[in-house]
């Protein structure tokens, strides 16, 4: 049996993962850290990533919430809310929230397409290691789900102030997050380094 030697990233123990794995995941024998998870075919991941990106487009202009106080109306999109924080002078907050809540998930999807589309078409992109390194660095900082839950919290906070209507943008954001999440779960980084990755 061919064996791939690696080390556990969390406890440092040397482990040998059988190369022809027919189980879906492999955990560290000492600390139970997830060391290997089988990925889906690249074509599935590409489809899901494109779906997520398409769902993101309407988010830029669809309102997530409408608030009605005594006949006065106010609505906001995901970007407009952060734009108001920027206008209040809190540039750093607006920047970090914009990056983590919205842009990092999108950049991650684009990087994934940069890596996988050429591999799917039979050649390894020149900068694959750079793209992957960026993807890996960003993966801890994507916070779309936190933004999503914060919308629900603000709904509860605001419902005493006036009449609240949930906009289409909110539902779009839920679907965007679901497709984004599925994309990242399906992608197994180990697959892009395999010798036969180009035929995958």
């Amino acid at each position, binding site marked *: 049996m061919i064996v791939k*030697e*690696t*080390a556990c*990233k*969390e*406890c*440092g*123990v*040397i482990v040998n993962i059988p190369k022809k794995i027919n189980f879906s995941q492999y955990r560290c024998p*000492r*600390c139970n850290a997830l*060391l290997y998870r089988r990925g889906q075919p690249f074509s599935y991941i590409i489809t899901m990533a494109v779906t997520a990106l398409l769902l993101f487009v309407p988010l830029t202009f669809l309102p*997530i*919430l409408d*608030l009605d*106080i*005594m006949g*006065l109306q*106010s*609505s*906001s999109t995901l970007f*407009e*809310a*952060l*734009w*108001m*924080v920027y206008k*209040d*002078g*809190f540039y*750093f*907050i*607006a920047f*970090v*929230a914009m990056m*983590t*809540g919205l842009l990092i998930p999108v950049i991650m999807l684009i990087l994934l397409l940069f890596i996988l589309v050429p591999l799917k078409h039979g050649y390894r992109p020149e900068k694959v*290691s*750079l793209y*992957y*390194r960026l993807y*890996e660095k960003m993966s*801890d*900082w994507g*916070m779309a789900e*936190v*933004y999503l*839950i*914060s*919308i629900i*919290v*603000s709904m*509860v*906070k*605001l419902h*005493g*102030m006036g009449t609240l209507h949930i906009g289409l943008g909110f539902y779009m954001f839920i679907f965007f997050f679901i497709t984004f999440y599925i994309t990242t779960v399906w992608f197994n*980084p*180990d697959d892009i*380094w395999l010798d036969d990755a180009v035929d995958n």
Partner: protein
Amino acid sequence: MQWITDIEAGKQLCLHCRKLHPLSVHRCDRCGSEVHQRIPHSIAITWSLAIAAIIFLIPANLLPMMVVKSIAGEDAGTIMDGVIYFLEHGEAGIGIVIFAASIFVPFFKLTVLLYLLLNIHLNRSHRAKFGLKLYRIIHFIGKWSMLDIFVVALMVGLVQFKNLATIVTGPAAIAFMLAVVMTMFATEHFDPRLLFDTELKKRKHKNESNEGNTHV
């Protein structure tokens, strides 16, 4: 069972693409990132970021998170004020969510980080597995403390009714966000493998003293 770690085997792992290298390599030939056996200056960086985060948490909890300006006047509320407001108005669920995300989680994360650092300094190897469990928890819940920042942004974005009612971002938001970001960086720079290395250090120490005894 005796485990062989990468230090004993003289190997180092690329943390980005998980390729195992000999010690002579400094840059991963597969993904191009720098390779170190352990994250360099892990303990010093984690300490300094954790201390900085603790300092920023003080203004974050004392200053107002957002200011509601309405005909009735100005109302500046801290994080705790928000939690109390919801508990008093029968929305206990949402009060607990905000309390958990904005007050409990940041303090819990920093306490765990300090506990892990002390475990390393005191060479408490029998706590390594428990420490790793705690580390995984704080790594997982790390981003959820950003919840309040997004809530403030949404409230500010939505409640813009000129003279009737406006919500403005409060000064605590920036301190809170810095505390959260620094805690996340601290967690990222902490190398959980150091928890397990303490055992190695002990074993080495034991062997050395045994050898010393036989020679005498």
